[in-house]
């Protein structure tokens, strides 16, 4: 006889089921507790400070007076410049997300067609450039895109004429796509990789061509990855300001730099706070809504 211990057989009475369910819930809560407590103390409370500040008053010298609670900083959100900034940022974020999706999808798909060992290497190769300093990467692009720089010289040599792209919106989009592409690739890859190949084979067996297989089988099944990737690209893009500053010449005020400005040059903390709160509420709503429509959670 093997050394299997004797285990009592328990009957699955309703009371037992209820007890087991309660234990499961408690266990789940227990697992969540450390992270929850940490985030409450070191994130939620500090964030509450920001929320409180959004109702405070700005003093003459740019400090914050905790008293005289008001909605002034929220009223400012209706100003024209805020609308312009918001629209500009959202448009840029959408454009970046779409371009990332279009580029990343075939790329992620290609990776899934490789052998597991090659796949890991390919994914690692995607991440590695992003371990250089973010600022330095942007400055490198500034070099490349400079007037009479490498890109310009190359297109000129090829006959397309010199490219004067630096400090234009195109340069900003390029920089943004560059910065966020991995965030689209990774979730897409994870999602496409999990697709059951038998479904694809079935589609082919039923005489579906490549396009049909894609639209009816592959794309729908990869939707969680599309949603996840889109969120991971859209959200930070909407608040990005470093890349637009370095590659766009700071000429158009975007939401990210506008918020930074309030906490910096303008020293208008309440307004910076209200902008942040509104931005985050919008993002959170969009995220949660998008998840509902996209099906499952990440």
């Amino acid at each position, binding site marked *: 006889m093997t050394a*299997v211990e004797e285990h009592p057989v328990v009957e699955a009475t309703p009371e037992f089921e209820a007890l087991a369910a309660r234990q499961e819930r408690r266990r789940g809560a227990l697992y969540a507790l450390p992270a929850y407590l940490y985030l409450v103390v070191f994130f939620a409370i500090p*964030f509450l400070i920001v929320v409180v500040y959004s109702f405070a008053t700005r003093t003459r010298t740019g400090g914050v007076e905790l008293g005289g609670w008001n909605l002034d900083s929220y009223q400012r959100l209706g100003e024209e410049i805020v609308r312009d900034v918001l629209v500009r940022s959202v448009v840029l974020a959408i454009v970046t997300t779409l371009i990332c999706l279009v580029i990343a999808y075939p790329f992620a798909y*290609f990776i*899934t067609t490789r052998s597991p060992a090659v796949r890991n290497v390919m994914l690692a190769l995607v991440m590695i450039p992003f371990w250089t*300093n973010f600022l330095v990467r942007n400055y490198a692009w500034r*070099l490349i895109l400079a007037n009479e*720089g490498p890109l310009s010289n190359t297109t000129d040599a090829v006959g397309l004429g010199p490219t004067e792209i630096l400090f234009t919106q195109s340069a900003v989009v390029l920089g943004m796509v560059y910065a966020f592409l991995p965030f689209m690739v990774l979730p897409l890859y994870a999602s496409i990789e999990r697709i059951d190949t038998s479904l694809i084979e079935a589609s082919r067996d039923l005489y579906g061509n490549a396009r049909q297989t894609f639209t009816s089988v592959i794309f729908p099944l990869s939707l969680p990855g599309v949603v996840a990737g889109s969120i991971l690209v859209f959200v930070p893009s909407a608040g990005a300001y470093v890349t637009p500053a370095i590659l766009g010449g700071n000429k158009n005020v975007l939401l990210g730099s506008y918020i930074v400005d309030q906490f910096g040059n303008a020293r208008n903390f309440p307004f910076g706070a209200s902008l942040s709160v509104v931005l985050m509420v919008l993002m959170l709503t969009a995220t949660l809504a998008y998840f509902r429509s996209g099906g499952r959670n990440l």
Partner: protein
Amino acid sequence: MTTIARPRNLGSRLLGLQAALVYAFFYLPILVLVIFSFSDDRLVGRWGGFTLGWYEAFWNDQELTDSLWVSLQVAASSTVISVVLGTLAAFSLERFRFRGQRVFDALLYLPIIIPDVTMGIMMLIFFSEGIDLLDSVGIEASKGIGTVTLSHIAFNISFVSVVVRARLSGMDTNLEEAAMDLYATRWQTFWRVTFPQILPGIIGGALLAITLSLDDVVVTQFSAGPGATTLPVRVFSLIRKGVTPIINAVSVVMLVASLLLVVVSLIVGGLRSSSTPVANDD
């Protein structure tokens, strides 16, 4: 894990070409970076002959090497803690149902969507007040590496949990149930069945956490104290005063170090997953 069948036709070749172009896109600035780190010219972008001088300057620059050491410490400790907390959080959200789960879920998303300057300012105020509070009960505290690490953990937990959840949600629970049917304890089940399967997710989360920690500027600036300058913060202030190739040299060093890290983790991950049987879906 599934491998999608690969047809050897034009479509496949085009895909391969596109992939190559994407990689070229990714590595173009890196190439520029590396090349000009060896250029003997103060202005980045002009080739002035080959030199290792910038690497030497980096090595001799006390402030830069100090900040590198600070960065590594912060990255290491914040990653370890956020991986543990983030993995636990991921489990709790994917495998269990409990009251307050929705709130927890939403809370986890906040650090991902918060603008970093907002987080920086709120941590600044929080730590400053916290120090006052501790002071009033007689505990002496100050801003420094500790507060930077605390801030980094605060945002890293969320990112780690996202990655691990992605891994968990696609996982087949049959294996775990089978293990438990065979009277394995929870701990045994976790360690020998679940853990090897989610290891890629954990490694992915850890790598992401390290990256975010090593790249963070704004939150760190506001959370730090004297002597707690991290490398990206130092680079940031140097850029203000003028980009010289020393910054390139720094970046290349970081790159090589990260490469080594990836190689090591791939090997470790590969070793672990090869020692436990992995199920196939068919």
